[in-house]
């Protein structure tokens, strides 16, 4: 395994990981509660979301290992978990480390979901909203392929996909909130009645 093939492996697995992470985000965002009518099974979407996230983790692992094993530039094992510990391209690799750390937190918390309070699990899962953009910026910051037209187009597609999904989710949540009935008292005439003196005695 020479340095060049390791380098290609790092770049390729990185791109694939970004695509898979984007898909994971989309599948996680586009979920509904109280569906009017759902044309596809929600439980299956949740399952696919999980499985794609596992694939993303696998590709990130390949990406990280090949980048460390490649001795052409020195990154070092410490930089896998500690941000900005890499001598090579300290800042951009550091962003990658941050994205990885957040991803691992999300992943591990989901594995242990049954043992966590729902609020705790949810809070950790929200770190995904930080992990994805950091991974995206890391991709383009590293610079290796980021001038290629197809990579730029891919990046734009990823941003579009997550952006649209996020907008959809925000709108769906607002619609759901608005559909909770307010119970105005105006439909049937009601006295503007204030209870009279409470100290009426026994009859």
């Amino acid at each position, binding site marked *: 395994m020479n340095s060049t093939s390791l380098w290609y492996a790092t770049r390729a697995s990185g791109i694939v990981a970004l695509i898979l992470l984007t898909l994971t985000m989309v599948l996680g965002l586009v979920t509904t*509660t109280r569906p009017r009518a759902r044309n596809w099974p929600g439980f299956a979407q*949740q399952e696919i979301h999980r499985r794609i996230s596992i694939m993303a983790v696998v590709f990130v692992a390949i990406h990280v290992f090949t980048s460390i094993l490649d001795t052409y530039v020195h990154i070092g094992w410490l930089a896998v978990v500690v941000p900005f510990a890499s001598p090579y391209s300290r800042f951009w690799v550091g962003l990658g480390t941050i994205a990885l750390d957040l991803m691992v937190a999300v992943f591990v918390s989901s594995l242990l979901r049954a043992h966590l309070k729902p609020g705790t699990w949810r809070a950790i899962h929200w770190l995904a909203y930080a992990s994805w953009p950091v991974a995206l910026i890391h991709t383009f910051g590293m610079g290796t392929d980021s001038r290629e037209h197809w990579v730029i187009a891919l990046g734009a597609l990823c941003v579009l996909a997550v952006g649209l999904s996020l907008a959809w989710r925000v709108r769906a949540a607002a619609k759901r909130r608005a559909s909770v009935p307010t119970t105005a008292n105006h439909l049937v005439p009601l006295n503007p009645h204030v209870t009279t003196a409470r100290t009426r005695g026994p009859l």
Partner: protein
Amino acid sequence: MRIRIDPVACEAYGYCAELLPEAISLDEWGYPIVDDRPLDSELMALAKRAVRDCPKRAITLLDKTSG
């Protein structure tokens, strides 16, 4: 084995009704209505899956003797 749903935790994701339509149906607002009959053994695997998959952990399985 019976199904019990915590109505406070439930937020009508509807996955349980998709997995177990034989025992769970949805009312007009998307919330689950559970058939109170004891579960068939063939449905047990699906029932356990419904318990695992509920995003709000609102569904549990009870022994017939407890609860």
